[in-house]
């Protein structure tokens, strides 16, 4: 019995001593760090920091007194705000009233009072951070800026004016930590941030404060990336430069194809349609150049006579012929005043002459041989058989160049709408220093006037600077007169110079008495040469007409006919040569009286 009591006592003693060594119980320490905050000036919360609890379970109680009142109240809510806190709701909160708050810690051994704290709710306002922070990259004249906007914390009643908040933002680049740029935004709820780095990624945060209170926590971070406009700017600059220089670049890459152009010729004249102007524009006063070196080149060295297959001669020039034929001939010496010959576009069909040059060469040569009085030394056959031609000077028509092939092809086309006129290409050569003046006779055919049977009459269309008026006594070396001797079986017109005119005709300069020559009075609208028969007084326009009856065959005409010439006013009635009278007339066309070809 005693033994058991002793054992129990020993155990109890051990128990107590053991406990007594490990722990000592004491009354609690007073709490500290009493802190109260109000988020919206309508409620507030106080927190405290408990001290040592003395080893015993300790309870905490908060008591408060309002200003000028002795009533002590206890905290209405210990739980809403968490551990060691006291929450005052709207009913328990008075603004502009001094609260005297203290916290009491109680345990089994005692209690401890904390230091009292005086608070006025209006001065302890610490709002929640602003909400709905948005950051947008905007552009101002090409430079980007950040448009930051936010809203006040939803609990703070700014709408009624109960609470007034001011804001502050901070911005930094993502890679630069702790290098924030602060911006004070006042009471506004949006803000612009300039001077951005292009391509940079920015972080933006905002916080707020009542006009007398504490700053809120920083809001949640907003991330934004500024587009890399610098490279875009460079790209834009390059594009702009490219655009500005696109014209010259285009010229570099795709050089423009030069178009045909006549130096010194105004294309607008063509549009006006006034042939006089065109013609006068075509006249180049100093052409051909009077250099002696070129003389030889330009010298026509041989004579070509081209007789087309179609026998019928048509003197009438038509515009169809013109299309096919190109002629540019020139004579350096114009001893006559017959400017018309020079001014006309294509006086003779060069094409017609040259296409068949290979074929005709032999004919030419033979015909040349037969002619008399030719100054043969001036006639040089080109070894290649090509005709040397003057460079085209007067060319409202397209130039075909000196390529014989071109000429051939163009002649083919010319033949298609060619006249049935046969024309000769005659090129008298002179070795005179006055230079060659030659006449090109172009025979061309007109299909619709084709009369295979008729052979006799050949109309010669010549372009000549030969002063035909100087017939007879005045033997100007620059002038040559030819007359048709005969037409051989090969449809060649054999010419002979008229040498002894004087002998034939009485009153040399006064040709009118001779029956062999007739004066050209003009060209009518149908491109018919109007000849005046002198002497008889009859006025007919013979020979040169297209529908000539060739049977007379004695019509000598050497005329300057321009294929494109606008016929002059016919001073005489043009009569088709089908009439009998016309045929018999032998006459020459006096080109001297032609003068400038007036337009019809």
């Amino acid at each position: 019995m005693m033994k058991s009591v002793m054992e129990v006592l020993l155990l109890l003693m051990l128990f107590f001593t053991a406990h007594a060594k490990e722990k000592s119980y004491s009354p609690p320490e007073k709490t500290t760090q009493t802190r109260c905050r109000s988020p919206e000036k309508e409620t507030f919360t106080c927190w405290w920091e408990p001290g040592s609890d003395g080893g015993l379970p300790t309870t905490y109680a908060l008591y408060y007194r309002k200003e000028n009142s002795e009533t002590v109240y206890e905290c209405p809510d210990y739980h809403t705000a968490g551990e060691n806190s006291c929450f005052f709701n709207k009913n328990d909160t008075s603004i502009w009233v001094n609260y005297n708050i203290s916290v009491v810690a109680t345990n089994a051994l005692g209690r401890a009072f904390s230091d009292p704290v005086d608070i006025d709710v209006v001065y302890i306002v610490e709002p929640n951070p602003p909400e709905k922070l948005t950051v947008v990259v905007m552009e101002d004249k090409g430079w980007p800026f950040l448009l930051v906007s936010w809203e006040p914390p939803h609990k703070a009643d700014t709408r009624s004016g109960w609470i007034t908040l001011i804001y502050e933002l901070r911005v930094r680049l993502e890679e630069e930590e702790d290098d924030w740029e602060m911006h004070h935004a006042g009471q506004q709820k949006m803000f612009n941030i300039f001077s951005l780095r292009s391509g940079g990624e920015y972080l933006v945060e905002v916080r707020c404060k009542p006009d007398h209170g504490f700053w809120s926590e920083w809001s949640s971070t907003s991330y934004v990336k500024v587009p890399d406009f610098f490279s875009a700017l460079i790209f834009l600059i390059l594009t702009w430069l490219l655009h500005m220089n696109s014209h010259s670049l285009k010229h570099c890459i795709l050089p423009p194809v030069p178009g045909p152009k006549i130096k010194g010729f105004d294309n607008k004249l063509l549009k006006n349609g006034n042939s006089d102007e065109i013609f006068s524009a075509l006249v180049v006063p100093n052409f051909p150049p009077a250099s002696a070196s070129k003389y030889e080149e330009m010298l026509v060295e041989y004579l070509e006579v081209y007789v087309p297959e179609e026998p019928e001669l048509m003197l009438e020039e038509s515009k169809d012929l013109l299309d096919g034929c190109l002629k540019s001939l020139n004579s350096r010496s114009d001893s006559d005043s017959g400017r018309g010959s020079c001014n006309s576009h294509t006086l003779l069909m060069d094409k017609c002459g040259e296409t068949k040059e290979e074929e005709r060469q032999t004919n030419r040569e033979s015909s040349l041989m037969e002619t008399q009085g030719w100054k043969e030394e001036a006639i040089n056959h080109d070894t290649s058989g090509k005709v040397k031609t003057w460079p085209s000077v007067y060319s409202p028509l397209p130039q075909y160049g000196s390529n014989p092939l071109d000429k051939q092809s163009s002649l083919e086309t010319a033949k298609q709408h060619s006249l049935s006129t046969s024309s000769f290409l005659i090129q008298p050569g002179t070795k005179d220093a006055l230079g060659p003046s030659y006449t090109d006779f172009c025979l061309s055919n007109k299909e619709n006037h084709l009369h295979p049977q008729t052979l006799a009459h050949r109309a010669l269309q010549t372009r000549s600077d030969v002063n035909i008026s100087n017939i007879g006594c005045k033997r100007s070396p620059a002038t040559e007169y030819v007359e048709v001797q005969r037409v051989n079986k090969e449809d060649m017109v054999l010419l002979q110079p008229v040498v002894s005119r004087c002998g034939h005709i009485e009153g040399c300069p006064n040709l009118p008495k001779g029956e062999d020559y007739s004066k050209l009075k003009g060209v009518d609208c149908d491109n018919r040469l109007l000849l005046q028969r002198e002497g008889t007084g009859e006025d007919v326009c013979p020979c040169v007409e297209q529908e000539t009856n060739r049977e007379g065959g004695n019509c000598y005409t050497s005329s300057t006919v321009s294929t494109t010439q606008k016929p002059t006013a016919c001073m005489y009635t043009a009569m088709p040569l089908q009439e009998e009278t016309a045929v018999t007339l032998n006459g020459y066309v006096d080109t001297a009286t032609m003068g400038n070809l007036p337009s019809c």
Partner: protein
Amino acid sequence: MEKVLFAVLTLVYLELSMRVVSAPICSYGQAGCHVPSLADLFERVIQQSSRMHSVSSDLHSEFEQYFFPRKNLIRKRKCHTYDILTPEDKENAQKLGREQLTEVIVRLLQAWGEPLSELYQSMSQDQNQDFNLYSSNKALEISGILHELKDGVTIITEKMKLLGVLSNTVGYNSPESLVPSSAFYTQADLDSMDHHDLLYCFRRDSNKAKNYLRILKCTTLPEPDC
């Protein structure tokens, strides 16, 4: 030389032509004045009340640091304006209505005219304290702002009555004699404690005035962003 002269003349001309012309502001719409709107008046008044509160708050905290470095000194103080019934939370303030709110503001402002001038005089007279030397200017500034604020509120009240926003029941018949602050004025000298109490009380009352004016503005001129 001519260019310089030309430049100078141009600048002179520009300066003369771009002179800013200002018109005097008057509240009664006299001829030649620019009459401010109610929003402008409220803006001005709120700015003044905010400034007044700010200065007084600074003064009070400086005073506390200088004279009472220990914090949480509990004092039983009673402001002389305690009997002016003021709403002490948002709901009560909004329940009051414009007329009563305006009256409260006016009463508050009127109650402080005298005490502030007394404070200033007391501070300036007591040259022994270094603090008084420094703070008397601020007291003077506060007093000046209060005076302007009183005038401003009067003008606003008149304008609101004119606009029909405020009924004519709002009067200025509350004489200052009713305010028990006269008890203070009898004292010949206001000691430091009194200064401290005054400053404390005024800080609070200026805050009240500022807040009430804001509420008044936002209820009279409602805006989404008040």
